[in-house]
């Protein structure tokens, strides 16, 4: 907010700024504007920096904002000054000795947020006081301690942040917290969940990632329910794994706990975007009740033992294969010094012959190449067709039903952990560390219903309520 005093023309550039200067007006001035389109009265708001430089924004007493074009302005008269102070009401987060201690690590994202109307963007709000101010129910669940690690949006999370996050999670466990919640943007939440699954192994307490698909500046936001269920699962839940806690259905009913290595964001905007692929979710969480669905999860323990392996080699890539792919794509990666390539292949794990030679050259250069599936569901099966067998002979290693993004994260991690030992890397890659490869795919591990079909319609009419 102090920036407001520094720049009295916040967000205004070019002609709009000139008009303000000409009439001695700054942001937060209440003005009467005479224009070629008539008279307007309102409070001059800061302008979003991504908006054009031609208009002034006035907030009318009715609460509406309107834009006034600079060249319609005949006169601006200042009639008052009223600077807004935007803050979520901070209330001290009450503690209760009977409640579990939960650590909330913040990475950014929109679990709790407020509007920045300079940029029009949503900025995270995070302190326990702020969170308590907007989701008071949290105080009935746990004693909350928060730590803001980064203020980045999901798409800006990367290896550098994974390492810090893993270390901080490990520290929280060592400090004796009963659970760790990580607030995260949803776009790459499953990448980070995978990274934590490998970097923080066999934790004694739940590590739960949570975010929201509708930012919490909206009344219909999923943030509060997600946060409530995530803190509950972290503080009280019996499952001690890295998990994602997000909406089950699009309705405000219950959350699902997904294993960190089998979860994926599957829709750009719906609330129920996170799905467990090739398996079923671990549990449902709803209003203080956690109901396991699977039974092979790791239980909560009383110790503080945890294996933290925070390492990542960034010279790995994930290549999405397509039919016309040329060999030089692979060659370029090898030339640029990449040490590992994960291919998302077609069908059972295929690429065309055009790149065989390049794959061979990669092997000769010591670059490890792994095969995953762009079908997302199912196992890599390279013995079924001749193509597959040929590719195997080129040294490409199949990764069963590991999801492509998970394989990418795991390869970066494995190379980071064993920088000088390719065989160890291969062994690690082909061994399931945190449930990233399953032995069996249950019949209901793949469910994409086709809308419009009578029996699906009938099912939805019953279930979507």
């Amino acid at each position: 907010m102090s920036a407001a005093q520094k720049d009295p023309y916040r967000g205004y550039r070019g002609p709009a700024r000139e008009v303000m200067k000409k009439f001695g007006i700054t942001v937060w001035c209440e003005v009467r504007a005479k224009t070629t389109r008539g008279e307007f009265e309102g409070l001059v708001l800061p302008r979003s920096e991504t908006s054009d430089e031609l208009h002034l924004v006035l907030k009318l007493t009715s609460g509406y904002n309107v834009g006034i074009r600079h060249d319609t302005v005949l006169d601006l008269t200042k009639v008052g000054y009223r600077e807004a102070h935007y803050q979520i009401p901070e209330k001290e987060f009450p503690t209760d000795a009977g409640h579990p201690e939960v650590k909330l690590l913040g990475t950014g994202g929109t679990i709790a947020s407020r509007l920045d109307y300079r940029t029009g963007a949503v900025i995270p709000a995070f302190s326990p006081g702020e969170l308590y101010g907007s989701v008071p129910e949290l105080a009935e669940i746990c004693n909350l301690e928060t730590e803001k690690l980064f203020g980045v949006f999901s798409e800006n999370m990367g290896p550098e942040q994974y390492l810090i996050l893993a270390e901080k999670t490990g520290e929280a466990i060592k400090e004796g917290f009963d659970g760790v919640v990580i607030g995260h943007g949803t776009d790459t939440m499953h990448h980070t969940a995978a990274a934590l699954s490998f970097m923080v192994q066999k934790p004694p307490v739940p590590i739960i990632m949570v975010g929201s698909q509708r930012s919490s500046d909206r009344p219909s936001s999923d943030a509060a329910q997600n946060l409530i269920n995530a803190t509950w699962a972290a503080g009280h839940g019996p499952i001690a794994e890295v998990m994602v806690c997000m909406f089950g259905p699009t309705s405000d009913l219950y959350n699902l706990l997904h294993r960190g290595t089998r979860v994926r964001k599957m829709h750009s905007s719906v609330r129920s975007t996170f799905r467990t692929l090739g398996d079923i979710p671990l549990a449902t969480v709803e209003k203080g009740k956690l109901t396991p669905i699977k039974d092979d999860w790791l239980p909560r323990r009383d110790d503080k033992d945890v294996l933290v392996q925070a390492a990542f080699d960034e010279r790995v890539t994930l290549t999405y294969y397509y039919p016309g792919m040329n060999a030089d794509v692979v060659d370029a990666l090898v030339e640029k010094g990449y040490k590992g390539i994960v291919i998302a292949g077609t069908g059972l794990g295929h690429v065309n012959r055009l790149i065989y030679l390049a794959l061979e050259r990669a092997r000769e250069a010591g670059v490890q190449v792994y095969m995953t599936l762009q079908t997302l569901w199912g196992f890599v099966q390279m013995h079924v067709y001749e193509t597959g067998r040929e590719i195997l002979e080129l040294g490409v290693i199949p990764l069963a039903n590991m999801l492509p993004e998970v394989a990418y994260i795991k390869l970066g991690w494995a190379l980071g952990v064993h920088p000088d030992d390719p065989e160890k890397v291969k062994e690690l890659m082909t061994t399931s560390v945190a449930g990233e490869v399953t032995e069996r795919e249950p019949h209901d591990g793949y469910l994409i219903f086709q809308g419009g079909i009578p029996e699906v319609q009938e099912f939805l009419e019953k279930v979507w309520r």
Partner: protein
Amino acid sequence: MEDHNSDQNPGGIRPPGDLNPRTGPSLDFPDKPFGEMTPGDYEAIGFMAGLEVHQQLKTKSKLFCRCPAGRRVTRVDAEVLRHMRPTLSELGEYDGTALMEFKTKKEIVYLLERGTVCTYEMDDTPPFEIDEEAVRIAIEMSELCNLNLVSELHVMRKQYLDGSIPTGFQRTAMVGLTGSIPFRVPSLGVDRELSIRQLSLEEDSCREVSDVGHRITYRTDRLGMPLTEMVTEPELLTPQELQAGAHLLAQLARTTGKVRRGPGAGRQDVNVSVAGGRRVEIKGVHHHRRLPLLVHTEAFRQLNLLRVKAELENRGVTAGNLQEPQEGPPWDTSPLVLDAGAVLADTSFFPVRNALSRGDTVCAVLLPEFAGLLNHVTQPGFTFAYEISDRIRVIACPVHAPFMTHSEVDRGGLISRHWKVLERAFSAGPGDAIVVVWAPKEDAATAAREVLIRAREALEGIPAETRQAHVDGTNGFERILPGPDRMYPDTDTPPLPIPDTMVSEVRAQLAEPPWDRQERYQELGLDERSAAVLSVAQWADLFDQVAPDAGETARRLAGALEKRIPYHARKQNGAKPRTPQEVPGPARVSQLVRALEDGKIRPEGLVRALDETLASPDREVPDVLDRYQPVQDDDDELAEAISEAAKKVGSLRTASEEGVLRWAMGAVMKRFFGRLDPEPVRERLLTALAQEGASPADHQGGGSNKAGEGVE
């Protein structure tokens, strides 16, 4: 309500402009029924009203997605359940309405139908670009109201936590501000300008299906339809003026030809205040004719609330006497609330007995110095106690009714022994009143708080409320009146410039406003009433295309269209008067009018010829015209008709010579369907009657009532 509110008070909940400019209430003015109030009476109580007219626009798509607009369905393919939480406004305030609605803790259910709803309406997809067709219509309507157009539309979010919009806010954008339109109502002696405060473009909300306890259900077909909201200044000074204003604005919207018609397509909210009070908004009035009684009743409700306030002041009651309880169960934290379950365990009053057997909490709330006031009549059939129970109904959402009684209920309710025990428990005196409420524990706590909140608001007089219209003209509580704090910018949509080029394009094809049209028609020779009707009629364009000569022809055509088009439309549509009427094309009607102008048919023949043209679309117009050629003086049939009529008058039991002539004229003219000039016929009949020697003096009554064309 007034314009003098630019110095908005920074900490205040709403602009002081909501206050009626006259601060002294007319407490001594007697309660008069509707119909006995003169304009002077309304002036005496300081009645002021303004309108917010919501009009659906006739676009192909909804406003922020590409779902089809204007479909109404009952089919349900799926349901979604959501909750709403209040959020902060851009200026850092929680809105009062939002907080209230959060207290209600409703489960909100949306019924989805695949043809009318996509993931946008479900709040599962961000908005698409705003529908340009709708923007252009909104600009056109702003231009018709002479509003100042903004240069850039900013889509705002207006919070509604009642669930009527799944996002929890309505996307809305201001299009134009500060204008006026001519407001002429000769029957009310009104001839002035009506100020239009603003016009915004917004998405429509859901249709409510049911609201039971903590669950409210909505249908989503209407959700997201483009809608304009036109807001007038509170310048309508009688209920009749208000109705006329609503009518004018509806006509104005229809003038564009780009708005929807039919049930729910146009809805009015009214803002009402009286001297000493503040604006109250009544929502969702579908019929203009319901407005006058509604606002009359509301004016007196407000006056009576002001009387309650005055009496409380008189008794020295202050807000301090009615403290809202701290957090926690109010029966633990407030001396004004107690858990009455034990006291009433042996009651024979069924609602309370049933509540106790359900395990509900029954609590009593003391209202110090309220004796007599709970029975103060506020609306026909309602007392001040209803103000309280209605709040509880909406905010605490009790499932079982009734859920409240009080110490002033004359018959039924608790027995006096129980009231005495409660009085003792509170150490209450004869000047106090006690309210008893029952509901599940948490709801009972909310209810007890609301009793105190509403009682305290009695000290302010008129709480700032949005109320809902009942069919009988009374109204009930809907929500706390929202303030500007519930508006914040929509971060999902960029500002949309409204360049001069777009404005010029709209102006180039601007509909002629009804007042201009009316003036033009009066210049053509129509009287004021006919001109007013024609100016907003669906056949006005037809009239213009046919372009009748000024004077007689124009008058005849206007009259014929006004009478006959709705008649034929009704016939075709099977008596569905709300169905838009079919207007014939100008080609055929034009031939009729030219024939009239050329003297090929008589003015009286126009209506008949038009009837036939409308009823038989396949018949060639010249053939129709042949049948209505004027009858010549030497026509044999005419001579015969005259003589027949003259002969028959002898059998008439009619009182006067005048009556006889009238009957005879009718008998003759009827046979010739307006093909005759009545004057010569009259002369010939007089002669014929004289020859027959008819003497009508002995007879009484009867006969045709009207000489003339014999139409209908």
